[in-house]
């Protein structure tokens, strides 16, 4: 057992790109679910639109990376409109079912064999398509800071950019929720009919929140595609959305920093458990008959499911949330 190594890996994961991707996805959900009370279970679909826009426009069509990012963001707006128009007038659970179905439509479409030449089927698209982004890399070697060690100069650059992006979105969220707009969406979350009786166009505000959160979600996908220089359809299954929800509720919904803190803690715990179990199995402390090395991932996912159940029941406000901010029980 090498506890030192386990800690270095876990602490590096706290600031690594996976943490950033899920923090972005959860920041989007925070606007939708945390502040407006919309049950968007299709965040994976928004992320997939961002990621595949980058990969298809650059790798398949040979266009500029910047154009592809722009298309990804516009795509998220259109997707939000398509989902919102039929469902935002209905009860909250309709939105949940339709968004999860729409995300699945996207995943199954991009992984289909018949559209292989555009989307790469189940293998996705891999290529050096983010060269334009990495040409701005100011680092000529991997940076390390205390116990945090990055693999390469590229990883250092994308991580720094990721945290700046998170900072900007946190700032935007903060400005939005203390603006009149923020007060209206919060009042919709608390009591839709009350805000309607005050003459607010509830449908319109909900639509704006859905689209805004979706655009942030597609940024998660765009970031992932640039970071990995590869997109794989099965990364955007409903598991992605469920993880983002766990992160949001863990950190505290309707808190500006909730998703960021949630993502950091979530990935620290998940990586720590994974690495510890891997070493325990490898050194034979846990025998093969109880747990094989290929089952460690499954145990981690079971723990996430359990954590989500226990959190929402016993501590719906998460670690830093305010219970009064969460009118979960009124719908």
């Amino acid at each position, binding site marked *: 057992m090498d506890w030192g190594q386990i800690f270095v890996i876990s602490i590096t994961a706290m600031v690594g790109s996976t943490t950033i991707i899920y923090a972005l996805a959860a920041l989007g959900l925070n606007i939708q679910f945390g502040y407006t009370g919309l049950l968007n279970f299709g965040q994976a679909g928004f992320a997939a639109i961002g990621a595949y826009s980058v990969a298809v426009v650059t790798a398949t069509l040979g266009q500029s990376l910047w154009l592809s990012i722009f298309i990804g963001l516009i795509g998220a707006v259109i997707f939000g409109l398509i*989902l919102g128009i039929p469902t935002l007038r209905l009860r909250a659970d309709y939105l949940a079912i339709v968004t999860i179905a729409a995300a699945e439509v996207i995943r199954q479409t991009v992984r289909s064999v018949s559209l292989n030449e555009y989307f790469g089927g189940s293998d996705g698209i891999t290529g050096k398509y983010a060269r334009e982004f990495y040409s701005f890399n100011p680092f000529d070697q991997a940076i390390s800071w205390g116990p945090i060690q990055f693999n390469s100069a590229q990883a250092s650059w994308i991580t720094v950019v990721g945290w700046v992006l998170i900072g900007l979105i946190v700032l935007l969220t903060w400005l939005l929720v203390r603006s009149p707009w923020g007060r209206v969406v919060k009042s919709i979350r608390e009591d839709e009919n009350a805000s309607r009786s005050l003459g607010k166009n509830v449908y319109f505000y909900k639509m704006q929140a859905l689209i805004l959160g979706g655009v942030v979600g597609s940024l998660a996908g765009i970031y992932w595609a640039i970071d990995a220089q590869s997109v794989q359809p099965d990364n955007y299954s409903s598991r992605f959305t469920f993880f983002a929800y766990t992160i949001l509720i863990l950190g505290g919904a309707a808190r500006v920093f909730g998703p960021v803190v949630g993502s950091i803690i979530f990935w620290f715990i998940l990586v720590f458990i994974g690495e510890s179990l891997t070493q325990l199995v490898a050194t034979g402390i846990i025998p093969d008959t109880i747990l094989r090395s290929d089952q460690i991932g499954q145990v981690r996912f079971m723990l996430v499911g359990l954590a989500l159940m226990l959190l929402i029941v016993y501590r719906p406000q998460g670690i830093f949330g305010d219970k009064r901010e969460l009118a979960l029980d009124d719908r």
Partner: protein
Amino acid sequence: MIKRVRVALLALLIAPLLSLSPAVAQDAPSGPAITGTLESPGGEGLAGVSITVEGNGFSETVTSNEAGEWQVILPDTGAYQVTLDVSTLPEGISLTSEDRAVTSATVISRERPKRIGFPLVEGDAPAAVGGGGTIGGAGFWGQAAQLTVDGLAFGLVIALGAVGLSLVYGTTKLVNFAHGELLALGGLLAYFFSVLVGLPILVAIPVAVLASAFLGGYVQNLVVWKPLRKRGTGLTALLVVSIGLALFLQYLFLFLFGGRTRILPGFAGQAGINIGPIAVTPRDMIAAVGAVVLLALTFWWLGKTQSGKATRAVADNPALASASGINVEKVITTVWVIAAGLGGYAGIMFALSNGVSWQLGVQLLLLIFAGVILGGLGTATGALIGSLIVGVFIQLSVLFIPSELKYVGALVVLIIVLLIRPQGILGRKERVG
């Protein structure tokens, strides 16, 4: 005391599943490699099957060993094509369809070999309910007739799930995202009782249905949902709980059962009986008759019996029902047991033609939702009609779109229906905003 009972029941739930875990051992090769294990649906290794790996100017043909294992060490990572020589398969074993003999494999890792599997079945490729779908008969209308029959059978699978989901929603207002796992549980229990316990399949199926009604209905309600209702947990929170539960159960099933799709024994690879342009296997006929009987019993119970009337009263207004002397908790327990039994049978029916896997529930959950929404959330009759329409629509859409996209088509239609008629075909108009 109650806590102890709960823990004991949980142990009971897990105990039979623990023994499902298959043993897999594979020596790791050095360098990039493609590997796999060829097994008959009964689990025996298939020796002497030849497999060719080509790509990047490299080509090698290997044959599988006694355990059915094969491995090709590659010169480098990259994209390769793996071809199984169908003529070398042993007598009585075939691929689910001929075009599955060639697959492409992208090898990325130098440490972990890429595993490639081939879907094998006993006998000739069977007609799959909602799965591959062999198209019988000649001409467009012959195909359409065959697909309609297949679609009705698939619709029955969805309906069994959807009626249960609808009953639970009607009485508790819970939108249960873990409902698919009831279907998976049924399939897994059928595999457990038929293959691991060794019961004949016609005995194993009723036993598995009863076991899933008990574990998935009675125990699930007692361990998870009843305490939450007592706590007064809100509906949105319950919805999120069901998602956590679905995630937990899926990976529990994967942990216990392994990642492969397994075939239920007994009926595999039957020849179809031809009725006009339509070919139906006796297996599918028996399964469909079973489904119709179960659904008829459910509707008879709901419409004619005392407890069925009590159920409808609770669905209508729980407070009033409780005030007029109906034991609401008892009604909800009954509903859970019935929903889990129906779901278990749906999982078995799907598994008979498509095999059992840990993902069975995920594959069907959204289609069940589509059926429920199409018919109108909360009405059992609507769920039945909506599901049959979804089933037939999915199978018929194969005439116009690639069959791998047929589920996508159904989900797109779901979104369009919500746009035009959000309350569904039979639903009551009830909307916010």
